[in-house]
């Protein structure tokens, strides 16, 4: 295998610009009036500036940084939900985005029905989901509620089902946005174990976390984002160490 084949994700100088209008013009009348008065002013805001990194297959990278530093925007660009204003993202392999657990669940449907719906959202047909269904419910420990509409679920149960589906379909690349903070302690441990299994099985992981210690444990590499800029990028123990020093500094 040459090096190109070995790369799961390549982000090449990506920038994401938002136009922050003072008020969003959702009504046609406002739009026309503002257009006529020439009041459509925007404030430009860069959520990401010139971010580049490469991640080899089976590798893991953690994104750290304070709130609003662009971590989730970066994940969304990689997941294909948003398109960067500049730069390119090249991804090879299937993606399971866990940006929000249970995104796409319909509250009126039962757990059983939502498994198939969510599977289809992630690009899998009924036959494939049939073969995974038992494992999903086993892992989520929700057999007792399999035919209950998920609107009656607690948020923890909801998240457990979402996590079970996204990790059981065995995508090549797993994108996680602070999901290990859901569920009770026992389930959190179970999730961590599952993630470690997946990682040793060759899954590529992108992880966003508030807690630098978890990032250090989970990921080989880390990228520290600060106001959309890359502050540091390298082995996770180094970056996380630097980030913790920074946190100590600002909290004093």
């Amino acid at each position, binding site marked *: 295998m040459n090096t190109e084949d070995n790369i799961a994700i390549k982000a090449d100088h990506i920038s994401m610009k*938002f*136009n922050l209008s003072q008020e*969003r013009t*959702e*009504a*046609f*009348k406002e*739009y026309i009036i503002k257009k006529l008065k020439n009041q459509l002013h925007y404030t430009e805001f860069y959520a990401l500036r010139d971010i580049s990194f490469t991640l080899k297959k089976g590798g893991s990278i953690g994104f750290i940084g304070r709130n609003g530093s662009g971590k989730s925007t970066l994940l*969304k660009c990689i*997941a*294909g*939900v*948003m*398109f960067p204003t500049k730069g390119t*993202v*090249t*991804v*090879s*392999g*299937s*993606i399971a*985005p866990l*940006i*929000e657990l249970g*995104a*796409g669940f*319909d509250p*009126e*449907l039962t757990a059983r*029905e939502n498994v*198939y*719906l969510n*599977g*289809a*959202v*992630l*690009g*899998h*047909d*009924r036959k494939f989901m049939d073969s995974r269904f038992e494992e999903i419910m086993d892992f989520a420990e929700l057999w007792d509620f399999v035919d209950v509409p998920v609107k009656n679920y607690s948020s923890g149960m909801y998240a457990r089902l979402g996590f079970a589906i996204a990790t059981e379909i065995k995508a*090549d690349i797993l994108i996680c946005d602070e999901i290990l903070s859901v569920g009770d302690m026992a389930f959190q441990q179970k999730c961590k174990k599952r993630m470690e299994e997946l990682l040793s099985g060759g899954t590529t992981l992108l992880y966003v976390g508030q807690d630098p210690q978890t990032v250090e444990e989970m990921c080989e590499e880390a990228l520290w984002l600060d106001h959309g800029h890359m502050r540091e990028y390298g082995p996770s123990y180094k970056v996380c160490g630097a980030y913790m020093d920074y946190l100590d500094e600002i909290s004093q």
Partner: protein
Amino acid sequence: MAQSSFKIEGKSAIGQFLTYKPLIHELVMRDLKVKYRRSFLGYVWSVLNPLLMMCLQAWIFTVIFKSNIENYPLYLIIGNTLYTFFSESTTIAMNSIISNAGLIKKVYLPKFILPISSVVSSLVTTVFSFAAIIIVMIITRAPVHWTILLAWFPLLSMFLFNCGVGMILAGLTVYFRDMQHLYGVLTLALMYATPIFYSIDAMTPEVQFMIRLNPIYHYINLFRCMIMIGALPGINTWFACISSAVVTMLIGLTVFRKLQKDFLLHI
């Protein structure tokens, strides 16, 4: 090797459609389940509703307005069923992007799947409600013509037309929510401009000309010819059906593609 999911963006609409067929299937199943789950009679409503509607209108227009169209109940229920297909599917499609905002903010999907699957769900309920048309045919002892076998053609044309209109509306509504309020009035106006409970022959030539510009008239007319008269209309009707359907679908796809780029910033 599975390729990058965003490269699908460059694929043709048909290619994407095939890749995401399971998703359309699941979304349609969801719509149908959610629509009838809480109601006592469930799917029976999609047959009962058009029947009740027809009875009411038949009574109003024969007793109060003295309509003299032959087999008026059948005439009415065909017009109503097809027009409901148009208005219902386009209204749901219009809101499909906004109501699935939670999904498209978190997961990559080709967004045109959402309005299309709304129209498919509506097509399925429309086909269920054909049972009501059959019931009316039996009760009124309407003769069955072989042309009934071709009735899928106006339905398919209408499906494509609805998909096109639905995509245009879905795209515009993301930017201008006013569409949601305006569209109710528009569909009502269009309903009166479509010969559902009156006959086009009773109109003046100028009005007839105006009505013929309305594609929905042609779909309903063709369907009625096939079921009620048993004769096929001239080439003009067929041409009107095919061209309006295909052109609207293509415009819909083009407009939607242009608009979808910035959806995420507006929902």
